[in-house]
């Protein structure tokens, strides 16, 4: 394993200094069909691109870029969510190379790319050692397109295999200035923390924050927020509440990660007995959607804080408002349950997922569609890989069904065309058509010659006017005559071969079979989606009921206190008498 690491480091370092050494391809030797596959691929239409590849391969239209096309096929297959098939394709490509002699035509570029994508796939599958071994197979120059990603992957594998010194070396060298740099630093810091090395974790989380300041794009600012929260966590663990509080002060108050940050900030301030600074943070949370767990906790906590500060009237008001909010929240959950039970909702939800996920803030805007009401409750669920897989698989299945529906409609047209061809023309029909047309032709010939004669009786000026019309008519007639002669030569009208008809019928049957299979699979996944979503809604409901009960208890406590005070006051007034 140590050797493998060293090899990886060596590769990362050696390749970093290499010049661009790709030989220019011979532009004249290219396959038009390879270009059409690329056209779909670059637009991320992997399904169409894969079909294009299959069609071109079966027609043997990929003659000049066979290996590049194979590599592309592997990449497309992987992107389309067929990792097992992609693995086979890459391995096939590489095994062919190993078996063949050096002049097999497979360039090092193609080979290296194949090793790279294979390694990347193993990494995503969690097979780190296999990924490292595969990446180490890359030899010679690294293609430009994958150079940065190669270094990144090598560093990620080193992080997973906890070769953190090598990662630090890479960060100080090849990965410096790369777009992946802050992510790698964050991953490294998290790895140090997981190993209990808090000092190094602190240093690297701080680097992520500095990076965010130097590159104030939203992407890096979100990462910096995460780093600040992580630093706060380390300080809390060390009992340094003031340190944690200082880190939390700098987390932005908008965006997905702001809820936990605000709540943590509030709690730290309470622990430090700085109640006045805790209140604004909790109030900010109090304004947000009731579907957020932190907001639910903040509502009760805020009331409790007012109570502790000796402001029973404000506390009571907050408890009452909290109760009303929880009642509304429970209603929202009920409505979310009704929505998910709707027949078409999973499909609409999955199809619109991208658009919904692109929204910066789900809490900010009022949803206009039913299924949007569902999403605030599913944020945590969305971050789970397995649920995300369900959504992705479902999205692909809906796309498959749409494709098969299209072909089912096309199948009707195919049958229509065939029926028409079979019924429309027979040898007899053809003979009759020729006879009729010949008669028409003879009549037209007479009419044209009569028109010609008539034109000759007109004045020279009129003849001059009619001449182009007559010429054009004669040209049209010649065209008709030529076509008629062509038709006359047909001995038997065209008919689809029996073989083609059988092939077509088989394909139409396959469409129906695949539609059934796809529908069954969709039903299974939709049912899983409903179970998981309902379980998540249960969790929300339980949590909300718990805080609702807390709010009721708080309210009752305050009423009791008020009653006791009134009774005590009454007793005090009675006592002197």
């Amino acid at each position: 394993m140590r050797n493998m690491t060293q090899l990886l480091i060596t590769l990362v370092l050696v390749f970093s200094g290499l010049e661009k050494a790709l030989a220019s391809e011979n532009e004249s030797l290219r396959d038009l069909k390879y270009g059409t596959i690329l056209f779909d691929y670059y637009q991320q239409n992997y399904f169409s691109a894969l079909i294009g590849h299959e069609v071109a391969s079966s027609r043997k239209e990929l003659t000049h870029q066979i290996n590049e096309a194979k590599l592309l096929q592997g990449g497309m297959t992987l992107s389309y969510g067929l990792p097992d098939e992609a693995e086979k394709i890459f391995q096939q490509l590489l095994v062919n190379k190993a078996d063949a002699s050096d002049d097999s035509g497979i360039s090092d570029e193609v080979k290296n790319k194949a090793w790279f994508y294979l390694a990347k796939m193993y990494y995503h599958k969690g097979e780190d050692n296999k990924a490292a071994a595969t990446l180490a197979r890359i030899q010679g120059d690294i293609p430009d397109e994958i150079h940065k990603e190669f270094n990144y992957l090598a560093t990620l594998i080193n992080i997973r295999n906890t070769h953190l010194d090598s990662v630090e070396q890479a960060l100080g060298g090849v990965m410096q200035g790369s777009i992946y740099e802050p992510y790698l630093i964050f991953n490294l810091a998290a790895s140090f923390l997981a190993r209990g090395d808090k000092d190094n974790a602190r240093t690297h989380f701080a680097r992520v924050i500095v990076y965010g300041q130097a590159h104030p794009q939203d992407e890096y600012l979100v990462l910096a927020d995460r780093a600040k929260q992580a630093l706060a966590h380390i300080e809390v663990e060390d009992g340094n509440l003031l340190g944690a509080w200082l880190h939390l002060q700098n987390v932005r108050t908008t965006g997905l990660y702001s809820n936990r940050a605000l709540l943590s900030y509030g709690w730290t301030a309470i622990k430090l007995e700085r109640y006045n600074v805790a209140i604004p943070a909790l109030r900010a949370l109090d304004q947000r959607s009731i579907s957020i767990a932190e907001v639910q906790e903040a509502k009760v906590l805020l009331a409790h804080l007012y109570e502790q500060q000796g402001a029973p009237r404000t506390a009571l008001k907050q408890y009452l408002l909290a109760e009303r909010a929880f009642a509304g929240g429970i209603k929202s959950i009920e409505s979310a349950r009704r929505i998910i039970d709707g027949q078409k909702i999973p499909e609409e939800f999955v199809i619109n997922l991208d658009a919904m996920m692109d929204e910066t803030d789900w809490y900010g805007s009022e949803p206009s569609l039913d299924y949007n009401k569902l999403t605030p409750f599913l944020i945590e669920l969305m971050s789970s890989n397995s649920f995300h897989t369900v959504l992705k698989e479902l999205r692909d299945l809906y796309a498959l069904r749409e494709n098969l529906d299209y072909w089912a409609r096309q199948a009707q047209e195919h049958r229509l065309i065939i029926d028409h061809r079979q019924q429309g023309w027979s040898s007899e029909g053809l003979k009759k058509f020729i006879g009729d047309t010949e008669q028409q032709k003879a009549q037209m010939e007479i009419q044209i010659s009569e028109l010609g004669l008539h034109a000759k009786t007109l004045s020279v000026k009129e003849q001059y006017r009619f001449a182009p019309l007559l010429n054009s008519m004669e040209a049209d007639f010649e065209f008709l005559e030529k076509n008629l002669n062509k038709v006359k030569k047909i001995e038997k009208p065209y008919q689809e071969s029996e073989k083609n008809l059988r092939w077509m019928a088989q394909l139409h049957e396959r469409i129906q079979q695949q539609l059934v299979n796809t529908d069954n699979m969709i039903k299974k996944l939709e049912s899983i989606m409903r179970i998981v979503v309902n379980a998540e809604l249960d969790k929300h409901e339980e949590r909300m009921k718990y805080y609702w009960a807390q709010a009721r208890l708080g309210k009752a406590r305050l009423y009791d206190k008020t009653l006791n005070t009134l009774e005590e006051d009454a007793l005090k007034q009675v006592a002197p008498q």
Partner: protein
Amino acid sequence: MTSFRLTNSCISVLFYLIISINSAYSNDQSIDFSEQEKQKTAERALNNVKVLSKEIQGLKKSVVDLNKDLQLMEEELLFPSSTQLSIFVSLDIGQFFTLESVKVKINGKQVASHLYSEKQRQALARGGVQRLYLTNLNLGKHKIVAFFTGIGPNGRPYKRASELEFQKSKGSQFLELAIVDDSAKQEAQFTIKQW
């Protein structure tokens, strides 16, 4: 091909971090707000997806195969190779011309037109080739005219046309409308290539 960013393990470390930061203060976050049995059922259901995933991969592959066969059959039915003509569009670099639309006339009749999106332009510039039009054509002489509109050098609207007389022979025929940067002239060249 998929991209990296935060690794899964680091996401889970992060998730643990932000959960635990609150549980360090209060007990509420550690309360299990769910019925164990229902959550277990949900977990089991999600685990089932891994098994189904293999079946889905098989289904996807067979639908791709079916699409291939259907496309081959449909072309045979509607566009037999004896009369088939395909028109493609390609763009080499595209530094001197931003393609906005293409219009094609065959024998004086407009048969195809296309308006390009940014995504399509990028795909063309990176080496993609678009199949613009597929049709049937009689054997013999024909004339094709292609009109290209877009933005030329200095950001000015640019309109160019290119034409070709060609002989449709037996077998499928391919025409490529090629837009190639000419660095010497600092402008794009528009040609129709016969394959």
